[in-house]
């Protein structure tokens, strides 16, 4: 796939400045102002509100199989999710997911 190089550089620059500004915002600029309760209440859920919706299609219709649902990838996703929730650990999720993926692919040939 050919990528639009200008777009990539704009995305990198925009993310760099934007992310830095977010990290610096209160510390450097806004100071001791309290974030209102309603804002905190929504900010707590930003990551879990975006990331699951972003990856759900990638798990159901993976690019590696040309968009065909794949039992090995589905099982790997389920295993990674279960272990990540159970152990509350990202490492457990990554390794159990990859091991399941390769094991099921090997068994199904």
């Amino acid at each position, binding site marked *: 796939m050919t990528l639009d190089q200008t777009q990539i550089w704009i995305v990198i620059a925009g*993310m760099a400045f934007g992310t830095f500004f977010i990290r610096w915002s209160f510390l450097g600029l806004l100071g001791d102002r309290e974030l209102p309760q309603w804002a905190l209440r929504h900010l707590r859920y930003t990551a879990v509100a975006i*990331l699951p919706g972003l990856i759900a299609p990638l798990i159901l219709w993976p690019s590696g199989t040309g968009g065909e649902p794949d039992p090995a990838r589905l099982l790997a996703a389920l295993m990674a999710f279960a272990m990540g929730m159970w152990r509350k650990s990202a490492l457990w999720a*990554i390794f159990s997911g990859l091991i399941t993926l390769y094991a099921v692919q090997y068994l199904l040939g």
Partner: protein
Amino acid sequence: MTSEQTISKSAFWEGYRDCAPFILVAAPFGLMFGVAATELGLSLIQTMTMTVLVIAGAAQFTALILIEEHAPTLIILATALAVNLRMAMYSAALVPYLGKARGRTKLLLAYFNVDQTFGVASVRLPLETQWTVAQRSAYFIGGGLAITPFWILSTYLGAAFGAAIPPEFSLDFAMPICFIAIIAPALRTLPHVLAAVTSVVAALALSWIPFSLGLLIAAAIAMVVGAQAELWLERRKS
């Protein structure tokens, strides 16, 4: 060396030690990001520039996915930065401890204000009531210098050698697994779970909306669901 510098130096190493275990968490994400970025076709320079300047795995993966989906630049930026909005909360929470640091120091503190350093510092700083601002800053920067070099190095290894990994290893799926690894441990409470479920259902239902805009709308709905669920639980308790 003055005694002030000696004290700050020991705070620096304490921060370094406290954050060091999280190298184990950051490094696999860095490695996977390097692999995924190369897989997508980003050059080594692009991959490394992003990883050094952004240091935020989830947002970086988000950008990759949306670039692959040919989303418009503005949507990519809005979605990736929305993933990082939680860091405004970190920034605000650090003000009571680090708000009096010098302007230049604050630039460095902001650069290192990532999930792991903030998580560690938000536990330790409230306990060290005797620490000066210089010590607190040294502690925070020590934590940042523990993790960031390994983040950068692991991204480099992934980007440099990822292309040599054969397709049988299904590395296209490394990215979804990384996301699951970020999401699953974060589902600590019922509102978090409800927000995540809403996000999936709404994103799939709204996927017909052009320019990947459906995801942003789904995210907004999911945030409101999480916040409302939290309010509802609080009211029920009292």
